[in-house]
């Protein structure tokens, strides 16, 4: 177990300078995510162009893993359609939970999250933003929870 596997430079960078941070103007689709265990909260807003995520922002207060994961996610899904987002979520989920998961090339910078699986207590930190994105895509108004 090496801390450098968890807190890679990409993660520390996205934690310090989160991309696409804030809330979209207008009437975006939106969902709130909450991890009651640690108190992390985040809000995802997005504009859809048909089936495609035209723009996305996130806002919230969380640990480095949760903030960096959300920041990386917004970069990765912008411009993708729902089906591609679902595929990506599946790949991220495998990356976070499966011992044997190799990181497929299309994950790009998201592969930096592979160290999280050595720290089972932190998997929910990394996955909260994805569950919240799913809720926003489903136009779920309710808060999603990791519990």
């Amino acid at each position, binding site marked *: 177990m090496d801390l450098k596997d968890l*807190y890679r430079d990409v993660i520390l960078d996205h934690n*310090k300078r989160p991309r696409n941070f804030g809330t979209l103007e207008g009437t975006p689709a939106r969902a709130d995510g909450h991890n009651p*265990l*640690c*108190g*992390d909260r985040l809000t995802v807003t997005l504009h859809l162009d048909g089936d495609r995520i035209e723009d996305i922002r996130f806002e919230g207060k*969380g*640990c480095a893993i949760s903030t960096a994961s959300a920041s990386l996610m917004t970069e990765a899904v912008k411009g993708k359609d729902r089906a591609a987002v679902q595929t990506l979520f599946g790949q991220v989920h495998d990356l976070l939970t499966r011992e044997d998961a190799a990181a497929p090339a299309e994950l790009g910078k998201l592969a930096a999250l592979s160290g999280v699986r050595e720290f089972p207590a932190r998997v929910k930190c990394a996955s909260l933003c994805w569950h919240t994105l799913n809720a926003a895509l489903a136009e779920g108004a309710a808060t999603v929870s990791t519990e």
Partner: protein
Amino acid sequence: MAANPALVTPVPLDAERVRRDFPILGTHVNGHPLVYLDSAASSQRPWSVIRAVEAYETHSHANVHRGVHALSQAATAAFEGARERVRRFINARSVREVIFVRGTTEAINLVAQSYARPRFKPGDEILISALEHHADIVPWQLICEQTGAVLKVAPINRRGELEFEEYLKLLSPRTRLVGVAHVSNALGTVLPVKRIIEAAHAVGAVVLVDGAQAVPHTAVDVAALGADFYAFSAHKLYGPTGIGVLYGREELLQAMPPWQGGGDMILTVSFEKSTWNELPYKFEAGTPNISGAVGLAAAIDYVEALGLPAIAAHEERLLRKATAALLQMPDIELIGTAAHKAAVLSFTMKDVHPHDLGTILDAEGVAVRTGHHCAMPVMTFFGIPATARASFACYNTDADVEALVAALKRAREVFH
């Protein structure tokens, strides 16, 4: 009679010797010797507790209060012996005032459902402090929904101390019950419970004291405090999980209806009407946690052999040392700086979320609690989502404090 602890200088605790009583402290975590600073969440068990439970399970187990056979009598003697041990520990007048429950949370829920719910009317007030654990908030919110009573909250100041004058202003003839922690789990603040109780009694309110964080650090005398109800858990007192105590004044318990129905809590049962067993069994439906009670009694023997004044003095010294060390670190902010604290150091590190801090400390073998500590309103008051909390027990040493400080420096390196 117990000597007045204030008049006796305790023999200093030999923590290195104490550590040998706790087998788990020899564990290595992530390649480092375990530095256990999470005793406020749950303390570890000494050999004497482990062996007492093992001896009970090996030689004495059967159901209690039921059989005429030898083992049932042995189990009953062990269980009721444990109750008498608890009675002496907290100086209750009678074993009828000592109810075994699962823990502090269940004790508070028992009082809420059996004392408050049948009595409270719309407009009655329940007064708690802003420092309470969720276990001393949510049961009262349920009662407010069920009865129309109103929950009032006495505020704290920026040091994490109860604003006593504000507490007094909130007391009125409408106040039916005051629920208050003896020691705050999130911040370590020691509350002036004796003065709180006296003021509450002056307006006719009863007082429930959540003693979960107090009994491991201070000798509790329920008679001297004048508490109407006092609740604590064994597992924070070096005993097993799943067992705790509700002390209640006998007059109050007599007048309360049973909370749960079942075996052992009845005298007679017919389909027309059942009659209740006497105290304390009226509140102990079903087969109790017998081995847990045995373990609790052994844990009480253990802390009394070390001496609570000696334990408190030892922990106070470690708390001062750790506080001084953390005050030297410019990016650490202490949360909770009350003049009177017990064994808890809550803090945040600039630009490092407490959960990241917890993971980094764990990689160094240092176990602390991170999160809201089941006291979300306390976190909201300080405008933070969470803290890291180091808590001290009889088995912690100067080396543990030094390991904490070194691990915090490591965290700063990771989040440069």
